[in-house]
């Protein structure tokens, strides 16, 4: 093989790896704070990508209506769980978050949608829609069972994935979609050509990693999220609302998922179920990082991307097999090296 091909493959691998890194980081974040292994992360990718693609063609995506429906359910749950002590403030907050926000968003989508809507507006709308869905998903599916075991949370997570994927088929149909590129600029360096799109992928990934690092290291909310992850009871004893921590984690994860989707959809055709496979590769990176280490996850994601690029060149039929096989030696090593982790009870 010559150097040019190798460089192409590396470039391709790193671009995909950057996306996997974003998804892996979101998985680690959600697991650390809520102990949920976020299988529906892939659906956030698809929903973000395909909502953006539909908005770009001037249609209203079904996800905007889903957000309203989920908001209603979340509101009903809020009322039900607070029925013994209903404060006016609590009800107002719940109405604002669960009803006013998604309804206003739906209104905004109807008002702004059209074939000539600027790309930035479409991106913002798609992100807001998926953010709302992520937030309500936590409220509806995970907050009521937040105290249960990792296994119960995982099963709920698989259920959410199946439900959201099914809804995805309803909203977007079985046909694949592509979205418009963020920028048509391109830079040439030697034999390599960097499109504006791939530069955006690198830039956003690095930007997100730095932003997350600053957020967790230096802000009060970020530290509170870490504290929730380290010791749930301790966090409650200093007055941190662990439900709020969970909501913030899901909000971040859904926004990260949607951004990843919007970054890929101009490069590859996405179908309603493509997100799952993409999410799984982020999951492999997260597992290699032990579901705790952010830097290790990011590095592992790049490795996953590169392995995928090379194996699709040499043995494209076995591409997925090779990528997913990566996880086996890691699991063996980790289970041999790590002491039995006792599940935290609270």
């Amino acid at each position, binding site marked *: 093989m010559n150097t040019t091909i190798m460089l192409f493959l590396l470039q391709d691998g790193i671009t995909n790896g950057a996306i996997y890194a974003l998804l892996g980081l979101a998985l680690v974040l959600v697991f650390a704070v809520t102990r949920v292994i976020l299988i529906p992360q892939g659906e956030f990718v698809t929903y973000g990508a395909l909502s953006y693609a539909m908005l770009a063609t001037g249609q209203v995506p079904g996800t905007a209506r889903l957000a309203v429906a989920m908001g209603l359910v979340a509101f009903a749950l809020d009322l039900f769980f607070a029925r013994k002590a209903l404060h006016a403030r609590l009800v107002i907050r719940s109405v604002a978050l669960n009803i006013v926000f998604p309804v206003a968003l739906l209104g905004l989508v109807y008002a702004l949608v059209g074939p000539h809507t600027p790309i930035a507006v479409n991106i913002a709308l798609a992100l807001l829609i998926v953010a709302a869905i992520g937030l309500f998903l936590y409220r509806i599916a995970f907050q009521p069972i937040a105290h249960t075991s990792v296994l119960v949370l995982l099963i709920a997570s698989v259920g959410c994935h199946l439900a959201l994927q099914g809804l995805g088929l309803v909203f977007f149909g079985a046909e694949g979609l592509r979205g418009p590129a963020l920028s048509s600029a391109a830079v040439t360096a030697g034999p390599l050509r960097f499109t504006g799109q791939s530069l955006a992928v690198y830039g956003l990934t690095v930007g997100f990693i730095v932003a997350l690092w600053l957020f967790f290291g230096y802000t009060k909310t970020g530290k509170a999220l870490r504290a929730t992850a380290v010791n749930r009871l301790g966090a409650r004893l200093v*007055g941190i609302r662990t439900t709020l921590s969970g909501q913030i984690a899901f909000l971040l994860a859904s926004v990260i998922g949607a951004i990843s989707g919007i970054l890929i959809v101009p490069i590859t055709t996405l179908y309603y179920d493509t997100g799952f496979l993409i999410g799984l590769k982020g999951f492999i990176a997260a597992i290699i990082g032990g579901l705790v280490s952010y830097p290790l996850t990011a590095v592992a994601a790049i490795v996953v991307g590169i392995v995928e690029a090379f194996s699709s060149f040499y043995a494209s039929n076995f591409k997925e097999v090779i990528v997913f096989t990566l996880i086996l030696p890691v699991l063996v090593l980790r289970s041999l090296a790590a002491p039995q982790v006792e599940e935290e009870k609270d």
Partner: protein
Amino acid sequence: MNALLSVIDVHISYGKVEAVRGVSLDVAGNEIVTIIGANGAGKTTLLNAIMGVLPLRGRTAFAGTDMAPLDIEDRVATGLSLVPEHRELFGSMNVEDNLELGAFRIAKAVAATSLERVYALFPRLKERRKQLAGTLSGGEQQMLAMGRALMGAPKLLMLDEPSLGLAPIIVADIFRIVGELRSAGVSVLLVEQNAQAALQIADRAYVMELGEFVLSGSAKDIAANKGVAASYLGFQHEGDSAI
């Protein structure tokens, strides 16, 4: 005068087993109250239930507000704070972050003065402020747990077995600081197996046995009680047990 904390006829159950039965207690402002009793008497259970960690039946009020509808997080905001038996520190975060999070519900400006005060009370914590909480010694962890609770500017601090597993010299230090808290305007509800030390600093005491209070009164009277002396202070007066 109204009690700061009042607990009236409280029952706490684990499933069908009733661990605490019909307990009433109160703590006034600027007062140190201790609950002494043997292992398994229900002292820790009672503190956890007052904080909201466990559900209870009965009435609890703090600073004049009924606490029944409040979650742990909201009870913290009203000025009630618990230093639990297992301390529940954020082990992989450093001392200063732990303290800073203790002031999670407090305005930033107030938190800064709280931090100064906590460092003045526990100079050891200032020396170790960049060290991870999980790597501290047992005594330092207890200091950090107390410091973290004090960062929230509580009106009442509930301490669960602060002396457990610590060297005597550190225990003395911790009890001295508990005494200092009273002069700083913080009431303390102290659960201890080390009855002798607890009775020395407390104003009033309750004696707990098998989920019930069997005796209460001024700390001095309790310490002088023959039965208590025999059961908890490790020396025998002449005559029969009074409890």
